[in-house]
């Protein structure tokens, strides 16, 4: 049975649906109404508020904390300055992805780590020899995601931190609705947004204060369905969907390196002493095998295919996580060259998007591929083109008003 987060009683009361799903052992709303459309548009046009508490969260302290984290994560955490957050990968000794997450430097000897899955055992196993304390604070620390173009205005109404001057991937301690906590300018929507970290017992008060402050701005509580569409538009991969954690893979072939999953940019191979480096140096020497690409499906073909069956084009109500095979363009070959792992209709871009892992010779922008598409139980293919990822990348995502006032254009 999934557990309840600190916000369960409030989110349950706000839901008109009974659409719960399990997220890392906790019950999390999929959507608050029969459909997630209103929530999705809140993310892109006003702001959405999500209970992020099921995220695994750790506090790492001690004089060796930075060195220790730099050993476990692909980024050089020793160079992470206080008040900054790094997105990074966790690899096993063979350089295969275990998880991805963030490491926030709260002060030179205190770090906050988040990950999709629980890793306390892994963290402790590899802490030998380092002066660090690792505390799993998943239950003690609630987290809220406030995401959307108006999120800054809403949050500023109830917090003293100067959000106009807060840069992308910054973190700051402060009071939110009178409660001590941290705010980071991070998120999983590819939009302007913040994540708020507060004690479990304060979570309801802060959630309520945000709902009140956000009412004039059309703030909506959101669930995971709307988030899933937004994160695909943002081109973000999801552990367990777009790549499988090496510890859950039954075969070597299913495991992915950071490069395979489009996360090669988080890896610095020149740096020594981190877990997975030797294997990834070998990968670089031999040449990586896979790449993550963004695909856009040919809408005219989708329409034509449906009309063959006398149907109007049909769109799934939510993003789809069922992987489908990807074939080379032209339709000649029946040997898959990859798989599309996440797909969604993008209401903002008005196009059908997919994230796919393909052999590297197919990664160039504009490459045409064929992806499996099922209509009336028959498996057909549709042409898909490799397009830039993120699919949706608004300037407001990274724009900081008071840091660069001259560039203000929105």
């Amino acid at each position: 049975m999934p557990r309840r987060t600190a916000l369960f009683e409030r989110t349950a009361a706000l839901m008109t649906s009974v659409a719960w799903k399990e997220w890392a052992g906790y019950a999390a709303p999929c959507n608050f109404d029969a459909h997630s459309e209103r929530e999705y548009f809140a993310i892109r046009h006003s702001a959405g508020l999500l209970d992020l508490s099921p995220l695994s969260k750790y506090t790492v302290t001690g004089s060796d904390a930075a060195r220790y984290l730099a050993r476990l994560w692909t980024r050089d955490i020793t160079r992470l300055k206080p008040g900054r957050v790094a997105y990074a990968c966790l690899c096993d000794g063979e350089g295969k992805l275990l998880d991805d997450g963030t490491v926030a430097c709260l002060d030179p000897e205190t770090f906050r780590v988040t990950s999709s899955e629980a890793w306390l055992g892994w963290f402790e196993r590899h802490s030998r020899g380092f002066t660090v304390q690792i505390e799993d604070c998943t239950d003690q620390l609630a987290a809220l995601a406030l995401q959307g173009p108006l999120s800054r205005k809403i949050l500023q109404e109830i917090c003293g931190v100067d959000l106009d001057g807060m840069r992308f991937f910054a973190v700051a301690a402060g009071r939110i609705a009178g409660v001590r906590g941290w705010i980071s300018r991070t998120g999983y929507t590819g939009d302007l947004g913040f994540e708020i970290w507060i004690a479990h017992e304060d979570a309801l008060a802060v959630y309520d204060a945000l709902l009140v402050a956000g009412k004039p701005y059309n703030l909506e509580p959101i669930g995971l369905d709307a988030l899933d569409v937004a994160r695909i538009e943002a081109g973000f991969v999801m552990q367990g969907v777009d790549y499988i954690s090496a510890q859950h893979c039954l075969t070597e072939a299913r495991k992915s390196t950071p490069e395979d999953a489009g996360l090669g940019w988080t890896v610095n191979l020149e740096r020594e002493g981190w877990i997975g480096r030797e294997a990834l140096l070998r990968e670089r020497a031999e040449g990586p095998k896979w790449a993550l690409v963004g695909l856009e499906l040919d809408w005219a073909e989708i329409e034509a295919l449906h009309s063959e069956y006398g149907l109007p084009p049909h769109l799934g109500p939510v993003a789809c996580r069922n992987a489908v095979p990807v074939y080379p363009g032209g339709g000649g070959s029946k040997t898959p060259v990859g798989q599309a792992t996440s797909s969604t209709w993008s209401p903002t871009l008005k196009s059908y998007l997919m994230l796919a892992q393909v052999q590297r010779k197919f990664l160039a922008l504009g490459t045409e591929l064929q992806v499996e598409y099922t209509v009336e139980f028959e498996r057909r293919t549709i042409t898909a083109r490799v397009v830039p990822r993120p699919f949706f990348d608004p300037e407001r995502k990274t724009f900081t008003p008071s840091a660069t006032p001259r560039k203000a254009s929105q």
Partner: protein
Amino acid sequence: MGVIVIGGGHNGLVAAAALARGGQAVTLLEGRDCFGGVASGLLHDTDSFSPEIAAELDLASRGLEFQEPAPVFLPSREGSGLLLHRDPRRAAKELGEDAEAYTAWRGFLERVRPFAASQLNQLAPDIRTSAPLLPLLRRGLALRRLSKQDIHELLRIGPACVYDTLSERFQNPLLVTALSARALSGTWMGPRSPSSTATLLLGEAQSGQEVVGGAPALVAALVAACESAGVVLRTCARVQRIQVNQGRAEGVTLEGGEFLSADRVLSCVGPRRTLLELVEPDSLPIREAGQMANLRLRGTLARVCLELSGPMVYACRPDLQVTRALIAEDPLDLERAFDSVKHRRMPSELPLDIRQDARGATVLIRCATMELKGGWTAARRGELGELTLASLEPFVPTIRSIARVTGVLTPADIASRFDLEGGHEMHGEISLDQLGPMRPSLTLSRHTTPIGGLYLGSSGTHPGGAISGRPGWLAAGVLGRS
């Protein structure tokens, strides 16, 4: 530059002498104030020291001599005990009805010895790659030279426990006890533990003549060999860090801050301490870090010194004066002693391994667990001395009037005084999964490490063993060829 050898125990001394004789500039660093490690005041049996290494290092010219090992006396409450000679002809009179079986057993051991010795005197086989099939085949041939019956017997008894193996051959429980006790040193086993026969066979294959003058004479000869070969010998030089740069060892930092640079470093302290404590944790791949974290090295050894004001007179044989004795009447006494190890408690009676001369006796207790519940306090230390006297009393009734307990080393004392992690005298338990290509682990058994220029040569690496010198010798060979 040159080679730094860390740890001046018998393996470190052997390795340093071998490397220096091979033309290397060698500095040997010992943390304590004397050389010899466990050979300087802890272990006393020298009959497993390799005569081949003694010859290669020309230790005879440094005064080293070998002799037939002294017989072991096992007193009994009833009857006249057993004085056991290794040589079956000399043992026959004492053994009576077991004489024939003992001769057969020694014969079997002698036939098996070349095969076992072939495993011990060369590098552990590399079983991770297919390349070295030839050496494996050669080892197979060494086995093939045995007769069909011997091969069958080896395969039959190898996985068995020593209690079964020996009890089906011998009537006299004292004989079974004497042979079992030998097999169990350095293990975490009792006579009824599976595979203890394999460790018995390995131990027998390593043992032969003993050094005249015992461990002190051996250490003196090795130090002299090092000196004449030009090794720079330093005591009270405790290494704090092996410095690694770009994946290569480039020297060591001593406690106190002194840095010594080196092309290569051979560590003859335990593999776990070397890799998990002396090397920065981010220099070691997690595979090897995990292997070392899982290495089992639970010490079971304690030592008690007795000062004697008169001869030790065994009631069952008052006329007999011996230098070696074993106090345990039945193999199941050893099993009960192991029970106390297993359950982390003080043993109620102690099997004792005694070396004595006119002035005193050194008593080794092999059933004192490092992991004792409640820890080794001063009171427990006193208890161990008292238990030693109490265990001797039924056999030497005058013991309390002639003996004074002068030095008790609990496993915790041994761990700190001899720098032994876990209090284990071999830096890793002897067991089938920690031997040969798995000692100390699958990827570290051939003396190299994932860190360039860093080698392992303590008894925690292949082939292990007590005072044998073999791991240091093999490691020096690997380093010398690199």
